[in-house]
């Protein structure tokens, strides 16, 4: 299929009135979530999924909305980092270093402007990347059998565990816990009930939305309660402008960081936060003495803000072409798509071109909307921070209740939500990453079924995990994925070297 023709059809989908409205809504909600500290994109996406079900949206519209929130939050996160030194999202932690220095010396305007322009350029470049790389990867993955899929998931979980959070073993425990949750309910092949403890409500398994809202949204409320963040904050915004000189000094940084961020985003587990801080340290190293990194260099804002937006686009590649989400947010998108009757995977580009190309086209539109939304309206978003937290936080919780209740109309789910909320709080306290739980839950079923199919084809012989059942030859793809999975467990050591260069953590969340 001709890519240009497909893209044109995609624009046809994106320009339908409903979808235009949804991309604007998604970008707006995403920006709000990005601006508000404490409410992460995972909670935001999870809270809007029930809405897509309730409105019986077609899958492409649902995905357009959810993706809009995802990359919109990347835009919004920079605002509070720069103005208040309070990162709205973990992906904007690095932005605060130079961004807030700039704001303090009266250059908040250029910092905000370069963040918006950097995000726009990066977002657009990453859509081009998604458009060209996606179909290629899909064509390659179409030959995958169960053995390759199982190996792929092992690879996904090992990179995720290696990159999410500070302690790899805690991430592995979180992954295992998510997989455990996935085994609750009827066994996919023999039909017997597993781990339901006689509860009828668990017969259909754990719903990913309830786990996500409990684990992320409710535990966020508890974390904020512990911190007791100050109520209202005031900030000086000034005029949002950028001089031609600022733009030309930053443009190479923006392009370099976009490419880097995009590639990191494609890797499962390495989300926008890691992309942001790898881009920052890379720019710091390349520009070295020529830059004033750490003292308010505009490129110190451009690098992480471009990288985190590009990473959000890159993260959609494994989701759409392999059905393998690399982060908590994309895991929720996968869950939502499956509930709407679309299973992402290599066939998706052919079976559901409307969904894929509609999404890609909507992202072009979305990036433009975000630029228009952010440059003139930053002041308005910042004023939102003056809404007292005693109103805002309980309001978020009230919407969580509706989201959870709407899934099955069953109060039992609210009980589960409370349990997962407490668990999420304790996991955060003990530094366990939360995203692997969600990924384990969403992918556990597919992982088990592919393992069992592979072994059925080989009549129970473990060689079935490495050998193509039809040709009898060793599957190079499966074997290399196993090798890569093993290698990725050394990634924490490499990442630690980056961290040593005077930066904090690049944590989970994404």
């Amino acid at each position, binding site marked *: 299929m001709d890519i240009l023709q497909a893209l044109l059809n995609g624009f046809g989908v994106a320009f339908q009135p409903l979808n235009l409205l949804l991309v604007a809504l998604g970008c707006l909600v995403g920006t709000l979530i990005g601006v508000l500290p404490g409410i992460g994109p995972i909670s935001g996406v999870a809270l809007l999924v029930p809405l897509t079900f309730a409105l019986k949206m077609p899958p492409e519209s649902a995905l357009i909305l959810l993706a809009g929130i995802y990359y919109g939050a990347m835009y919004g996160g920079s605002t509070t980092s720069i103005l208040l030194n309070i990162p709205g999202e973990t992906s904007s932690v690095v932005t605060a270093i130079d961004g807030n220095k700039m704001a303090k010396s009266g250059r908040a305007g250029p910092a905000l402007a370069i963040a918006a322009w950097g995000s726009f350029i990066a977002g657009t470049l990453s859509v081009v990347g998604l458009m060209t790389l996606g179909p290629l990867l899909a064509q390659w993955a179409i030959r995958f059998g169960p053995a390759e899929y199982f190996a792929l998931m092992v690879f996904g979980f090992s990179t995720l565990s290696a990159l999410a959070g500070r302690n790899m073993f805690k991430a592995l425990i979180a992954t295992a816990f998510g997989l455990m949750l996935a085994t609750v309910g009827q066994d996919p092949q*023999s039909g017997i009930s597993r781990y339901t403890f006689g509860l009828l409500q668990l017969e259909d398994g754990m719903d990913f939305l309830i786990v996500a809202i409990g684990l992320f949204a409710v535990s966020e409320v508890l974390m904020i309660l512990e911190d007791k963040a100050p109520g209202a904050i005031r900030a000086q915004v000034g005029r949002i402008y950028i001089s031609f000189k600022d733009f030309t000094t930053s443009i190479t940084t923006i392009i370099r960081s976009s490419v880097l961020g995009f590639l990191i985003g494609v890797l499962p587990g390495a989300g926008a936060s890691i992309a942001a801080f790898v881009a920052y340290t890379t720019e710091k190293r390349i520009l070295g003495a020529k830059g004033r990194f750490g003292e308010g260099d505009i490129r110190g804002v451009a690098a992480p803000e471009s990288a985190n937006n590009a990473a959000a686009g890159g993260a959609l590649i494994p989701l759409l072409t392999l059905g393998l989400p690399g982060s908590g947010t994309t895991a929720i998108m996968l869950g939502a798509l499956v509930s709407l009757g679309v299973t992402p995977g290599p066939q998706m580009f052919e079976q559901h071109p409307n969904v894929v190309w509609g999404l890609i086209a909507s992202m072009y539109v979305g990036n433009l909307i975000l630029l228009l939304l952010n440059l003139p309206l930053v002041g308005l978003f910042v004023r939102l921070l003056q809404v007292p937290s005693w109103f805002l936080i309980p309001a978020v919780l009230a919407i969580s209740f509706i989201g959870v209740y709407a899934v099955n109309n069953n109060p039992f789910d609210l009980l589960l939500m*409370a349990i997962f909320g407490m668990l999420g709080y304790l996991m955060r306290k003990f530094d366990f990453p939360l995203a692997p739980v969600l990924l384990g839950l969403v992918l556990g079923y597919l992982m088990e079924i592919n393992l069992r199919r592979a072994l059925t084809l080989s009549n129970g012989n473990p060689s079935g995990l490495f050998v193509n059942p039809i040709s009898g030859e060793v599957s190079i793809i499966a074997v290399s994925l196993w090798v890569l999975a093993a290698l990725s467990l050394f990634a924490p050591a490499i990442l630690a070297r980056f961290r040593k260069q005077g930066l904090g953590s690049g944590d989970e969340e994404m």
Partner: protein
Amino acid sequence: MADRIVGALILMLAIGYAVVGSRMVGGFLSDPLGPRPFPYLIATLMGLSALWLLARPDPNPSWPKKEFWLSFGLVLVSLVAYAYLIVPLGFIITTTLEMTLLSVLFGARWWQGLGGGLAFTLSIYFLFTQGLGVTLPTGRIFG
């Protein structure tokens, strides 16, 4: 130290999970692998990681002040109560009360919390039920 306790609890969870898995009964016409090995695999992964945690624990987390645990407990109890009361009392009453409680915990006066909570609850109730077609319990005492 805290990590050691957590590690021990996780190890117990992994063992318990495997034991429950081994006692599953029934199932026929299954594949060569059957319903049990995948859970065993998970339990092994979790158990080994827990052992590592026991051997090499992280430094203790910073614990919140004592007063926090009171509000923490209060929030949890109220969430459980919410789950049991939403059907008999209805969405509007339970959600308003829950929001009031949380607002007070976040430092509002009770009347501020009640006012803000009631206004917000009413608006989302009508937005979701009338505008978006979501069913929310009206409450038995009204029905």
